[in-house]
């Protein structure tokens, strides 16, 4: 594999030195896609022609010395839930068949303003509901490390695309772990910023108070660059944080001496976690200690309630957010409907997959009269307890380290019959969404030849410490340079 393909920084430098052009990068991405996607089903569609035209313009800008940003001319993929003007968005759902957005999401605007080239859209669990990218109307995505295994979800397509080097960067969204968990399953770096750090304008909503856009890259260094581009206040998003965006790349000082790494015993004593996974993660933490960090024990006593609280809140919000998909103004409408009620019921029943329907039903129930206090309100109170857990923990440490997932990528079809077992793979990731704090997953080894992820969680708006820590880890290890074998 060329050096050009190994990182975003390498691509940027190659463009800068004239070793290659943006057009060549785009061609490379298309070639790599053509080689691998039939097996992976990670990418739903490339806008190759448009990308080539944009690449040409980038090359012209470069020749004229008028670059828009350091990532001008670099190819990137979007998860299929971020709208782009005149492009289809399906959220991997039949109910959005044929939908073409008349407006751009904020992240698309920012990427285009930076000159990045959006190659197309990636496969996902329908409406971001899932942990395997098997709930997709376009078919499951396959893990590049083992085609019979799942990529994780819901941003599985984006994780796999970067793992397979179709592009060096891809955007995802994370509501309960949907960036971090697929990152760990696919052996790449995935970051979920602080809630409100990246605008949700144009992100098709799943659970409004939990959703956040982030990215997949091979390295923390690359993640810093992408995050720099997409983060920032947006007045169109009322939950957007007004604080200025720091220089994330400048935060990669390479020095974590004195950093306190919190180890919550609740995340290391759990019987559901694969022992080899635990071992890889502990080895990763040992690397951090060797670099000068200090491990301290912390408590996150309410960890085990996170999944339940998450499923109550997320499904409740989703049941309301998905009410707009009704066959009236866009998307799928059932044919031959005689009246309004039939239009709603048949369009929605035909348009939504089983998992989405299950979550809508649950969410509707949770909000319904008589159950609100017991379920929804209770879950919001548990959320407060989780926030308090983190506040106490961060009084004693600067980052918290856990396994990203209790296990490595499971086989396709293994968990689709039992929703609960699927939900439990989010046990280490959901708390961050409930508390709004940032988190990153970095590859830290393999188990049974499948990647293992080390998760780092940080204080609100402290992406800098997370990235710095991840970067130091990646300077001392080479797990992030591992690539899956031939994908045929």
């Amino acid at each position: 594999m060329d050096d050009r393909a190994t990182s975003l920084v390498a691509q940027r430098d190659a463009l800068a030195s004239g070793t290659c052009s943006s057009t060549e990068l785009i061609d490379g991405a298309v070639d790599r896609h053509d080689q691998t996607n039939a097996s992976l089903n990670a990418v739903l569609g490339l806008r190759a022609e448009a990308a080539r035209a944009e690449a040409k313009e980038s090359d012209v800008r470069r020749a004229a010395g008028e670059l828009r940003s350091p990532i001008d001319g670099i190819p990137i993929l979007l998860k299929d839930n971020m709208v782009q003007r005149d492009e289809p968005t399906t959220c991997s759902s039949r109910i959005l068949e044929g939908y073409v957005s008349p407006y751009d999401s904020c992240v698309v605007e920012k990427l285009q303003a930076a000159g990045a080239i959006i190659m197309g859209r990636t496969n996902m669990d329908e409406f971001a509901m899932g942990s395997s990218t098997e709930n997709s109307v376009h078919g499951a995505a396959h893990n590049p490390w083992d085609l019979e295994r799942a990529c994780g979800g819901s941003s599985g397509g984006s994780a796999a695309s970067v793992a397979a080097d179709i592009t060096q960067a891809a955007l995802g969204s994370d509501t309960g772990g949907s960036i971090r968990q697929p990152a760990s399953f696919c052996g790449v770096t995935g970051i979920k910023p602080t809630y409100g750090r990246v605008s949700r304008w144009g992100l098709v909503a799943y659970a409004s108070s939990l959703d956040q856009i982030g990215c997949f890259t091979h390295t923390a260094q690359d993640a810093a660059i992408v995050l720099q581009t997409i983060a920032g206040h947006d007045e169109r998003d009322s939950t957007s944080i007004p604080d200025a965006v720091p220089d994330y790349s400048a935060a990669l000082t390479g020095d974590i001496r004195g950093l306190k790494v919190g180890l919550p015993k609740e995340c290391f004593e759990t019987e559901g976690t694969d022992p080899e996974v635990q071992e890889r993660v502990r080895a990763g933490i040992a690397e951090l200690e060797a670099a000068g960090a200090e491990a301290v024990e912390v408590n996150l006593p309410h960890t085990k309630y996170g999944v339940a609280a998450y499923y109550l809140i997320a499904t409740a919000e989703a049941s309301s957010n998905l009410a707009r998909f009704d066959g009236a103004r866009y998307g799928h409408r059932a044919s031959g409907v005689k009246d309004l009620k039939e239009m709603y019921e048949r369009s929605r029943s035909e348009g939504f997959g089983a998992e989405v329907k299950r979550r809508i039903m649950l969410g509707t129930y949770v909000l319904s009269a008589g159950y609100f206090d017991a379920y929804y309100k209770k879950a919001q109170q548990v959320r407060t307890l989780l926030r308090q857990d983190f506040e106490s923990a961060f009084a004693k440490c600067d980052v918290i380290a856990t396994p990203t997932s209790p296990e490595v990528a499971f086989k396709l079809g293994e968990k689709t019959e039992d929703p609960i077992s699927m939900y439990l793979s989010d046990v280490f990731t959901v708390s961050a969404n409930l508390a709004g704090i940032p988190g990153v997953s970095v590859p830290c080894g393999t188990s049974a030849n499948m990647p293992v992820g080390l998760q780092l969680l940080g204080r609100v708006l402290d992406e800098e410490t997370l990235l710095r820590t991840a970067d130091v880890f990646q300077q001392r290890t080479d797990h992030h340079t591992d690539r899956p074998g031939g994908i045929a």
Partner: protein
Amino acid sequence: MRASLPAMSRITPEQVHYIAALARLSLDEGDVARMAADMDRILEYVDSLAELDTSGITPTAHAIELRTPVRDDIAAPGMDPYLAVSNAPERVNSAFSVPKVLDGEER
């Protein structure tokens, strides 16, 4: 610590029908049974929250505290009405067209 969730009750087919109607989903009989079973499983799992004493705890609606964001009252031009209906399954000129509302459902 008294449990604050209702005693574990099986989700009945009637409840499934009621919820499905609220959510405008139509389920055939097989679906109803499966859905009831799935919901039961999930609710049994989330019942674990009943163990927690949350009396006096303020619910968190927003993870990050923010001041009320507002927008100045300046009207932007409306979008092209034909663009507004460009994704419509059915339309009449620039209006969306949907099947008739049954008697008794008018608002």
